[in-house]
């Protein structure tokens, strides 16, 4: 399987890190590893995402949001010639209480891509505790094929 070029990696990081004031920026995600086999992303601890007043227990919803975002990244990396991509459905299991102030690590990949659909799976754990997954999810995405690459569309959007 072809490795991703250094140039595309840099462009991915650039787009990812400059996405306006949206949620991905707020989550302060840091890409740790990208290849055609999958992506790994780190989310620093953020007290805004907790449910308890002590701010040590993450809300499940932020883990779901994290999976959705990282699935999008995994598809973006591994599928060529896509002009648009939307989440069709998402399923998440919360495997244990997400109680920690450690950074959160997500690993996700696209395990099947067709002309119209991409299928994803991913896992989440606290940094240093890969043996104790806190959530696991799967999703499917609807892809729109077109001449305009998703990457190019977003790059243009940024430039204008």
């Amino acid at each position, binding site marked *: 399987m072809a490795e991703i070029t250094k140039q595309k990696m840099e462009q991915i990081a650039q787009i990812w890190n400059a996405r306006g004031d949206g*949620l*991905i920026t707020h989550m302060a995600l840091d890409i740790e590893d990208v290849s055609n086999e999958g992506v790994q992303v780190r989310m620093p601890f953020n007290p*805004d995402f907790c449910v308890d*007043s002590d701010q040590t227990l993450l809300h*499940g*919803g932020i883990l779901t*949001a994290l999976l959705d975002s990282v699935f999008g990244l995994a598809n973006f990396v591994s599928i060529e010639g896509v002009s648009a991509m939307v989440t069709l459905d*998402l*399923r998440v299991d*919360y495997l244990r209480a997400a109680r920690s102030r450690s950074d959160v690590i997500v690993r996700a990949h696209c395990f099947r891509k067709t002309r119209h659909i991409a299928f994803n799976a991913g896992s989440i754990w606290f940094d240093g505790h890969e043996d104790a997954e806190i959530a696991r999810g799967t999703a499917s995405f609807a892809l729109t094929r077109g001449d305009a690459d998703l990457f190019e569309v977003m790059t243009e959007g940024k430039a204008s």
Partner: protein
Amino acid sequence: MDLQTVNANVSRVPFFRFLNFEVQSLDSLHAEAEMTFETRLIGNPVMVLYHGGIIASFMEATAAIAVHPEFAEVPAKPINLTVDYLRPATKGPLFARANVTRKGKRIASVSVISWQTTREKPVAEGLYHFLLV
């Protein structure tokens, strides 16, 4: 349980404050809430759409309140969820209605729909399970 007390509970949860929503109606099997649009909730900055994970989070929050509105410290414990995304959610308020399909001794099943202009055109629907023990 009156709405004022429930919304006071909601405002004590940091992530619920982040989402910024208000419970608008409540009975023993239902909860309905409205979320205000904020830039930090955007998933697609080019088209200005809500993040799918935020929609799922808002529906989960509404479902947890329907299951256990009088939570003291933390909301009801979620087990898992399935969400179908039906339409894009654009800039503007977002609504959710949670319906407790079954509440047993240990587990509750909740179905939730989310919409913007009319509930006949939902943006997403979801099924959520909660652990009650």
